[in-house]
Each structure stands twice: as structure tokens, then as C-alpha cells.
């Protein structure tokens, strides 16, 4: 009984730990003084920042990064938004200077065709092999 109770306690602890991990928000690099007063505009800035790669710590978005260049870019995006630039114009401004690499999600272009389509090709090959194998093993 006691042993069962102990395992139950450990089980609850593990579940609690997982839940905390699941519901905890990510840490962000945005400093309080950067945040725009207008919530709508701030939300736009946050959404753009989440898609922009920090060029220094290359697998983080500028929204998460505390690198100085990421901060500069966040401020620049907010300035552009308050000046009335559209999201598209802001993305263009950034890719003109840093290339498509600055986008965390590469665009669907002729040069990125293989990148986007190869996973599906491999999936099809995988399905084909499984079916082929199954068919063969049934015969035996």
C-alpha cells in the first residue's frame, strides 16, 4: 500500500512537472521600454519579430534573443510600424539587407523547391517500400 502510494506521488510529481513545462511561457528578449503603447501595433511587431532570425544566435528569433543586433532590429520594426509601413514592406526591408536567411521560415521559391517538397517525396518512397514489403511477406 505504502509502496503504491509512493509511486502514485512520483507519478503526480512527473505530471505536474510536465504541466508546468507545457503551460510556462517562453522567455522573451523584449525589454519593457521597447514595447509600444498601442497594443494592436505591438502585437504586429511581436508577430513579425517571431518570424525574424537573430543573425548572431542563428536559431533564435529576434523576439527571444537578447543580442544587441536583435534589439536594434526589434526597435527598427516598431519604428517602421508606427511610421505606417505594412508587414510586407517590413519583411522586404529586412530581406533586401540580410537575404531570405533572416526569415525563420524559408519562402516557397524555385530555389527552395527541394527543401519543401523532398520530405513528401521521402514519405511517398517510405509508404511505397512498406507496402511493397508487406505484399512480399504475405506471399511467403
Amino acid at each position: 500500500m505504502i509502496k503504491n502510494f509512493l509511486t502514485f506521488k512520483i507519478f503526480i510529481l512527473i505530471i505536474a512537472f510536465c504541466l508546468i513545462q507545457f503551460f510556462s511561457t517562453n522567455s522573451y528578449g523584449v525589454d519593457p521600454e521597447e514595447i509600444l503603447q498601442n497594443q494592436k501595433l505591438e502585437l504586429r511587431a511581436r508577430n513579425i519579430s517571431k518570424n525574424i532570425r537573430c543573425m548572431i544566435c542563428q536559431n533564435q528569433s529576434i523576439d527571444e534573443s537578447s543580442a544587441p543586433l536583435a534589439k536594434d532590429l526589434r526597435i527598427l520594426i516598431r519604428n517602421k510600424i508606427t511610421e505606417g509601413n505594412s508587414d510586407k514592406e517590413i519583411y522586404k526591408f529586412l530581406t533586401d539587407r540580410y537575404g531570405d536567411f533572416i526569415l525563420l521560415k524559408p519562402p516557397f521559391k524555385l530555389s527552395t523547391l527541394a527543401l519543401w517538397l523532398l520530405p513528401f517525396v521521402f514519405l511517398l518512397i517510405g509508404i511505397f517500400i512498406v507496402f511493397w514489403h508487406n505484399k512480399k511477406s504475405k506471399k511467403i
Partner: protein
Amino acid sequence: MKKQFLIFPSVLFLSILLIFLYLLIIDRNPTELPSTLLNKKVPKFESESLFKEKKFVSSDVFGEKIKLVNFFATWCKPCRDEHSYVKRFSNQEGIEVIGINYKDNSQKTISWLKELGNPYSNIAVDKNGRIAIDWGVYGIPETFVVNSKGIIKYRHVGPITKKIYKKINLIISEIE
């Protein structure tokens, strides 16, 4: 029949292995990114000039001669390391070296250049890093080669080493 079936995955695996081996052997730096500004005109900008009273206006500075544009700061250790090579370029004929002082204290820069020597014919002051963003700079020191028509021909991220010094010279001799 079964043996034939096994050939395909092993060939695929071996070819992937070969690709990885090739990428491992060739001389490449995965963190270095190609500049989108290559073969394009230099970005237009205006700023204070560190030594001159007259403003630094990019359209007045670029053109005519081949220019080497060097983004530097006194707080950046690799900038100190590459300084001897930057000076060598300034001694070469037909090349002018332009400095862009990135997010730095002007007074400190002046004493830094007094100590190490000033290879720059003109220095633009980039107080908030906006000029650097226009050039797609992400990690100083960065060096650009601009031809006599004001078009960017080469970009190097990181300090100039002996190898890079030779490479830049080769590029300069090609565009001359």
C-alpha cells in the same frame, strides 16, 4: 530479389555519407552568410564624419577609386587584430579605405587610432548601428570591397587574416 532490394538503401546511405564528408572537408564556414548586396550599389547614407567637419555623404565618397569599407569598433577585439592588414591596404596604391565606426565612443576611437595608426581616409560615425543594418552587417569586423562604380564586389565577415588579405588583393586585382 531480396538482395536487390537491399542495394537501394545502402547506396542512398553511402551517398548521404559522401555528401557529409565533402561538406566536412571543403573549406567553409557555415556561420558566414553570402551578402545580398553583392553586385549592387552601395546603400545611400549620411552621417557625421569622425575627423572631418563636413558630413559623410555616401554618394560623394563612393565612385572613382576602389574602396575598402571596414566596419570597426574599439570595443571589438578582432578589429584590433586585423588592424595591421587594414593599414597595409591603405598603403597600397589605387585603394582608399573607408572606416565605419560602429556603436562606439568617438573620443575612444580617436585615441585608439592614435595608438594603432589611422588607415582610414574618412570615417563615418554609426552611433546607433543603422548604417550597419543597411549594409546587412551582423558581426563586426566586416569588410566590403567596392569597385570604382560604387558597386559592392565582395564582403568578408570577421577579421582579415593573412589568407583573407591575399583573397581581397586577388579580388581587387580582378576588378581593376
